[in-house]
């Protein structure tokens, strides 16, 4: 049993992978659009972004309750450290993206509507400098996250097709 992630962890992984890739694509598309769907996608982006923040917290809590498969023993200590670091970074970005998104909206005085269910508060007085910090952060973090996801996926495929070890299978 120790060579596979638990079912809950696998579901979290793939559901959130799809969610994060969708949020990134939607983000990049919507900021380049003047079309009538732009504000619709923007609204969904914020709602699903808040959902992603909630999910990643539950996911982290769940992770600490579960056993995690060992990395292949033929990896060097350095490789293992890099693998672990990349996962910590992925979790970090999954938290930092929605937090920077929300704080950007907070500073700009724009309440965030979540799936027409409720609204998150925004500042009553606008602070353009704080807005700018989080707006730029949101954009830069997104670029780094995309690069990291590519590395992460390439590494997974490398394990599977080149090293032919158990790493990708452990997440399937």
């Amino acid at each position: 049993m120790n060579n596979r992630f638990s079912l809950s962890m696998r579901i979290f992984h793939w559901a959130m992978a799809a969610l994060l890739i969708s949020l990134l694509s939607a983000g990049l598309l919507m900021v380049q659009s003047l079309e009538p769907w732009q504000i619709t996608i923007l609204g969904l982006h914020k709602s699903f972004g808040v959902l992603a923040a909630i999910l990643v917290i539950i996911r982290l809590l769940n992770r600490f309750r579960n056993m995690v498969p060992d990395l292949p023993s033929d990896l060097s200590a350095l490789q293992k450290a890099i693998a672990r670091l990349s996962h910590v970074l992925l979790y970090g970005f999954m938290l930092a993206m929605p937090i920077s998104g929300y704080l950007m909206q907070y500073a700009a005085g724009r309440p965030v509507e979540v799936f027409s269910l409720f609204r998150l508060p925004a500042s009553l007085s606008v602070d353009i400098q704080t807005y700018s910090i989080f707006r730029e952060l949101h954009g830069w973090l997104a670029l780094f996250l995309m690069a990291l996801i590519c590395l992460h996926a390439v590494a997974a495929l490398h394990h599977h097709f080149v090293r032919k070890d158990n790493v990708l299978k452990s997440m399937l």
Partner: protein
Amino acid sequence: MKTIFMLGLVLPCIALAQQPSKVTPQQFVNLQEGDIVHKGFRRAHAKGICISGEFLSNGSLTKYTHAKVFEKGSTPFIGRFSIAGSNPSAPDLKAPVRSMALSFATSATQQWRVAMNTPPVMAVSDPHTFYQQIIAIKAGPEAIQKFFKDHPESQDFLNWKSSYQPSGSFAAETYNSINAFYLINEQDEKQAVRWHMRPTLTATPEGLKGEDALQQELQQRLAKEDIVFDWVYTLATEADNENDPARAWPNSRQQITAGQLVIRDWQFQLKGECHSINYDPLVLPEGIEPTADPILRARSGAYAESYRRRAREVLNGALEANSNE
């Protein structure tokens, strides 16, 4: 398995590669800011002055909307009078369009931004044609004549233009929402509306002079008295297309005065809070929703791009020299 992974990676890339063949917010804002970028300032309506006061609602719109601002009572606002154009020191009296913007922060979850202009309608119905119109304006009188000839939808705009006489005060203009919105009531019923701010005084431009003529007139006026506007809502009927900002609605449409806007004070824009605010008309409280008007829906993306640029410049200190003067 391999193909599934490849698809998962490749599909989003294909989606991203679908470069919009239409004008993007970046292109639009590039056109608006022109060749000389005034760092830290809005890329449109760059010259303006902060105003503040309150909206005194008489409660007559509560049948149509559950937005808090329209309950009987008063809501403070931070607003801005401005002129169209990207130059923050342009001469007031040369601008073809004057504007009023308002921000109501009713509560942390209910905020509303309004940005209105002197024309009651747009000359065109979608942002891409509007882009072409701005290119024609920049190219000169012949190009814009030709543009209007090629775009019969500009007729209502041209009718307004031929009868419009600029007044001698920001306080004496009529400011229009141009785009239509839906009012939503407790029963979830929708009513399409446009609105305008109707001045309660007249003023001629005679004797006004100087680059900042309108701002000075406003300062002198507010030193003596409050400025009052009636906030008038026009209700659309089945016969009106609420999604076309170029078409005027007949004068016979029912109008409701929602209350009075009272302006009590002013500040230079770099000293006041209005300069930090992005008056994006799609920041709406519960009880008001956007129509499908393509111009209205294009505004959010363009305003965000302008705001991002100027916010970054402000962060980098672009306005420090100005505000110490």
